[in-house]
């Protein structure tokens, strides 16, 4: 019989204290009609802190205990015994649990087991009879049926890891056998599954911002172990090891960057609005063309080669306010993961990277929320259980009131009539269907509207909805099914002239479904396989007359519809403890019925790891990718007017490969991870456009486009410290990215068919993101960014033509603007940890661009007809101080 053991670690201290009844008067000392955990919490608060309690989940009984203080303990224990609990006393401490839940003795036959516990381990002290403070960590948990125990071999141990306070699943927690032989990371549902040797062992759990946990196990056979972990509240030293550094040495995948919400909130950003995408841009290998740009370039790839997923749905425009803010509300985000090299076979459709943004599950214990006020936006979020411990919700919303800033502009400014607004909303529902099935529903909506005059209005919106069903068939098999709908619509209204007034709309709508299975085969193989399908429905342009007097000839380009599907299979093979391989195959297909174009083929994903020790590893990887949807843009920044088009008979899909190798070392008592990764990458059929191309409302767009190839290479060095008073990362990247037109079009060929620098080719790049905690309430964050100036195309020659001086442009991207340097600081005041306080206020004071450096965004020339003037444009040319308030309740 498999036995499920549920650990409740110090949970009561956090929650139950708030549930104390108000009528605790000295003369009638006691509690009325409270659950057992609240009763114990009362004892802990009023009589002795040294009481340890394992609540029976089935115990819904209400306890009323009233007695003078000196007799209270006795009465309370009597009541608990009536409720079926046993009370033990040991070394001045009390232990309350059901019979069988707590075993303060060693299991029978323990010393006869073949694998003795190593005496060096602290937790083994109990077995040696030393007097130790007994916590749940040094209880021994038996896994599997002792009656059918195997004497040797391995068993599969699985379970969920959840947050002790909120009940949310904890993602990315490292679960490992402390002998170093087995390692797993919890997935998006907090689920882990790993193979452990039969017999006694110690299982470690560690995660960012969580207190490390070590559990003594006695494994008889396959079984489940659910764990709750406590958020690290104020312990700033003494953490042992972090999941990131563990996983770095255990998994063969490389080029994966994960940023937790804690770090996202600490990084100072412009106007103080915490922003997940801006933090992604502080990672090595990620560049952007300039400030106020949410489009990013990963390892020399273009902005449309990044797949941005939010809970499985694709976000085509992740920007608010032309890129000043990203469309993700940090109140509901759990973490952000960027795959820039080893992209799992289950993902595809973009060449350069996958950015996965995951939102949190709501608190399963109680309703809570937060309210944030910033210079540009205000935010509200609420979360909690709909059905306690079973159904939760999380709801977040943001809106802006940036117009007050615009109203500060002088009335004679030509932008005084300008307006910008946005809203976004997130909803997440999660429902447990028994122990093995969970259903999640996600909804996302964002809309932006801006105008620079009363005549022209730009709008866009994202709508995403998805359902996810996660099912665990057995200890070794699980399934995730996701289906949803993504929609991105963009429109312009121009009323400048009533006779030419128009609306122009474009849209990307897609329905998707994905089925993924994970299976453990034997001890060494973990398989992931499945299929995904995507149905595109694009409106490349609808141009319509606006108003009765408009002469505009309404016109709709034919909708672009296509199917994209893929089958994928990958295997992570732990060849030996030190050596593991990951091999994946994704077979993608694209079919566009309107012109009968079909594309497809295999995509390979390989990576391997060899660990010289627990702290030193090397990795190498190779992968190929295909991309069937392209962003058509003639600006270097992601512009709101960019439209997406599908591959067709005339527009071939982009394809590319990347080879990478890395060296990883963890130093300074396992606190600092050093990594060095090098890569070389080629992409074919990347789309550029001809000079003077008409990209908007063009039925024959393919004639305006040209194909280029891209080569990129670089080295990324990073030192990352996730724990301690000082945490953050320092990175240096040296990289290049160049393009070359693939076809010879004579004198029209860009740069005569020679390689030229991509607009985001910034060879040297130094980034520092650090947070120093003075105390658990006060911390200082620093963000430093240095990069070589980006290439721009500037004129070389001038001539008089058409009554004015005109410019001759030469080599594309042949000149570099001055280097970029920016330093941001933020001082963060966290709320005090008073558990009884109803609201917690955090404050952030910061300054963006502390040195006030006028960083150029572009260098350009204009001609007023008579004279040519050189200009340098800075987006944020001065210090921008800010203050941000966040109220949790």
């Amino acid at each position, binding site marked *: 019989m498999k036995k499920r053991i549920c650990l409740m670690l110090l949970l009561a201290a956090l929650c139950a204290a708030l549930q104390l009844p108000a009528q605790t008067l000295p003369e009638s000392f006691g509690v009325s009609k409270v659950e057992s955990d609240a009763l114990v919490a009362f004892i802990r608060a009023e009589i002795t802190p040294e009481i340890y309690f394992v609540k029976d989940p089935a115990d819904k009984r209400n306890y009323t205990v009233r007695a003078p203080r000196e007799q209270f303990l006795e009465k309370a224990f009597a009541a608990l015994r009536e409720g079926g609990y046993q009370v033990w006393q040991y070394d001045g401490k009390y232990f309350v649990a059901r019979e069988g839940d707590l075993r303060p003795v060693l299991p029978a036959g323990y010393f006869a087991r073949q694998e003795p516990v190593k005496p060096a381990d602290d937790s083994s002290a109990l077995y040696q009879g030393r007097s130790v403070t007994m916590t749940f960590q040094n209880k021994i948990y038996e896994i599997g049926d002792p009656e059918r125990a195997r004497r040797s071999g391995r068993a599969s141990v699985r379970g969920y890891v959840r947050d002790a306070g909120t009940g949310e699943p904890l993602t990315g927690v490292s679960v490992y056998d402390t002998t170093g032989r087995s390692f797993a990371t919890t997935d998006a549902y907090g689920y882990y599954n790993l193979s452990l040797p039969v017999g006694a062992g110690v299982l470690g759990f560690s995660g960012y911002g969580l207190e490390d946990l070590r559990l003594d196990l006695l494994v008889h056979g396959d079984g489940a172990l659910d764990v709750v972990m406590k958020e690290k509240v104020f312990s700033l030293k003494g953490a042992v090891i972090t999941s990131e550094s563990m996983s770095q040495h255990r998994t063969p995948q490389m080029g994966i960057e994960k940023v937790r919400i804690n770090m996202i909130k600490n990084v100072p950003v412009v106007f103080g609005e915490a922003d997940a995408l801006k933090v992604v841009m502080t990672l090595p290998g990620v560049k952007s063309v*300039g400030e*106020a740009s949410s489009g990013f370039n990963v390892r020399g790839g273009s902005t449309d080669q990044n797949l941005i997923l939010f809970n499985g749905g694709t976000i085509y425009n992740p920007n608010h306010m032309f890129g*000043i803010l990203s469309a993700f509300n940090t109140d509901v985000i759990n973490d952000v993961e960027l795959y820039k090299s080893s992209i799992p076979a289950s993902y595809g459709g973009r060449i350069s990277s996958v950015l996965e943004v995951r939102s949190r599950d709501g608190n399963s214990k109680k309703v809570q929320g937060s309210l944030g006020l910033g210079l540009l936006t205000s935010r509200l979020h609420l979360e909690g259980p709909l059905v306690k411990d079973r159904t939760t919700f999380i709801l977040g919303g943001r809106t802006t009131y940036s117009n007050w*800033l*615009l109203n500060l502009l002088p009335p004679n400014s030509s*932008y005084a009539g300008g307006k910008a607004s946005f809203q976004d909303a997130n909803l997440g529902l999660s429902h447990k269907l028994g122990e093995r099935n969970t259903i999640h529903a996600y909804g996302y909506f964002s809309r932006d509207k801006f105008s620079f005059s*009363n005549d022209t209005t730009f709008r866009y919106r994202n709508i995403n909805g998805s359902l996810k069903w996660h099912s665990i068939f057995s200890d070794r098999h699980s399934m995730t099914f996701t289906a949803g709908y993504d929609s991105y619509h963009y429109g312009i209204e121009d009323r*400048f*002239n*009533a*006779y*030419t007034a*128009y609306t122009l709309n474009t849209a990307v709508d897609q329905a998707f479904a994905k089925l993924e299975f994970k299976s453990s085969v034997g001890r060494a193989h973990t398989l992931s396989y499945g299929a995904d399908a995507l149905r595109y429905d694009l409106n490349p342009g609808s*141009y319509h*007359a606006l108003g009765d007097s408009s002469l*505009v*000839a309404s*016109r709709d380009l034919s909708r672009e519809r296509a199917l994209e599907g893929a089958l994928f299979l990958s295997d992570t093979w732990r060849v030996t403890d030190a050596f593991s391989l990951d091999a994946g195959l994704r077979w993608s297909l694209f079919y566009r019925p309107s012109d009968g174009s079909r594309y497809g083929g295999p995509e390979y994903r390989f990576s391997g790891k060899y660990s010289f020790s627990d702290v030193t590893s090397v990795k190498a990887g190779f992968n190929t990718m295909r991309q069937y949807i392209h962003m058509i843009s*003639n600006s270097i*920044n992601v512009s709101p007017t960019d439209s997406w088009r599908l591959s067709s008979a005339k527009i071939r899909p982009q394809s590319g490969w990347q080879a990478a190798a890395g060296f990883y070392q963890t130093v300074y008592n396992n606190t600092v991870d050093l990594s060095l990764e090098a890569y070389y990458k080629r992409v074919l059929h990347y789309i550029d456009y001809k*000079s*003077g191309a*008409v990209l908007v409302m063009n039925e024959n767009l393919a004639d305006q486009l040209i194909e280029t190839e891209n080569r990129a290479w670089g080295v990324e060095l990073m030192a990352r410290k996730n724990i301690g008073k000082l945490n953050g990362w320092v990175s240096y990247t040296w990289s290049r990215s160049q393009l070359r037109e693939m076809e010879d079009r004579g004198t029209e060929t*860009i740069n005569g068919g020679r390689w030229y620098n991509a607009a985001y080719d910034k060879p040297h790049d130094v980034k520092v993101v650090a947070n120093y905690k003075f105390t658990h309430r006060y911390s200082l964050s620093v963000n430093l960014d240095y990069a070589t100036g980006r290439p721009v*195309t*500037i*004129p*070389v*020659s001038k*001539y*008089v*033509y*058409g*009554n*004015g*001086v*005109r*410019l*001759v*442009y*030469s080599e594309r991207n042949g000149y570099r603007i001055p280097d970029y340097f920016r330093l941001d600081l933020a001082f963060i005041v966290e709320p005090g940890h008073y558990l009884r306080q109803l609201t917690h206020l955090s404050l952030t004071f910061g300054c963006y661009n502390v040195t006030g450096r*006028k960083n150029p*965004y*572009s*260098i*350009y*020339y*204009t*001609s007023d*007809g*008579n004279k*040519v003037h*050189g*200009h340098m*444009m*800075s*987006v944020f*040319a*001065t210090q*921008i101080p800010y203050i941000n308030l966040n109220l949790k309740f």
Partner: protein
Amino acid sequence: MKVFCYICLLSLAFATASCVYDFQPDYQGQGGYVAIEGDILIGESCTFTARLSTDLLDPENEDVPVVCRFRVEASDGTVFPAGSGGRVDLTGADPFLEYRLVAEMTAPFRRTYVSSWAPVQISAPIDSLFWSIDAAESRLCVNVSTHADGPCGYYRWTAHETWEYHATYYADHFFAFAGSEYKGRKLSADAIVEYEDGENTYYCWKDAERTDILLAETTGLSEDRLVHHTLYSFSKTDRKVSHIYHVALTQYRLSDDAYRYWENLSTNSQDVGGLFSPEPSELSGNLTCLEDPDELVLGFVNVSTCTRSQLFIDNAVTRFSRWRGPAYGEVIPLPSDYPKYYGWQYRPAWYVEGKGWAWLPKECVDCRTSGGTKDRPSWWINNDK
């Protein structure tokens, strides 16, 4: 451009700092590209010029003309040679033929440039040319309406502007040095004397070609009709419309390729550097060098007819302009200090009873300091002189 300024202004709200700065990059420019300018205008006398482009960073050589022999060839073999100054008379040319331009560069270059053969684009008549004030009352717009019965197409305009403007103050006297002539006699000493009848430095005229590229297309419309199309506009502080403004507008019909060329030229020189600006790129025109077909030749020779219209805008009618000149005067007694004031570019304006002459900065009383002249066009609408 609009977008970036908007964002910059957001930061301006926090601190008064500008976001666009003058900048002179340090790099090697390049000159020497041949630019050939001029359209083949059927029924008109048209002018062709050839120039060399100059290094962008060279402030001296703005305009380097090259001597060329031009001729226009018609598809029936007729040749229209250019006279002096590259002027070709096409008044009798047949609008139903195709035409091309041939430019032969004389020694030492010895190169021949030809434009591609093109049919004549017939320009529509201008229905109306009129002014309006925008809804925000911040811009005075010059608008055109035009239409044709054929398929939709492309338009370009050139505008020759003439405007009458005034000095801030009317000075009825002026300063004359000893020895200068006044009313037929030589002055024996420096003196402030009254202007003769009709003389003044108050009314001036100035004229110029508009340098911006004025384009429109009707290809997205249901008919070839532009209604109330705004060509350009003026701010309230633009001196051109402070009194009387005149524009002589010429309208050309462009071919599709010519429109793309001009549009790209316009983008490259007027719409660059912003957050969402298109990347500048060079678009070849329709001229080829016969000796070296790979040579980049600047310019596009469009073949069309042209139509014209004109418009006067009187500020007394529009009541739009808020232009105010410099206003600062100082009354000082003569003769003790006047040489000093004269040297400081002050001029006497009028006499203040009992105090002396009011002296004002030269630009307040002499409109010629702003580049205009006293050459009143013979066709000017009023009697100012």
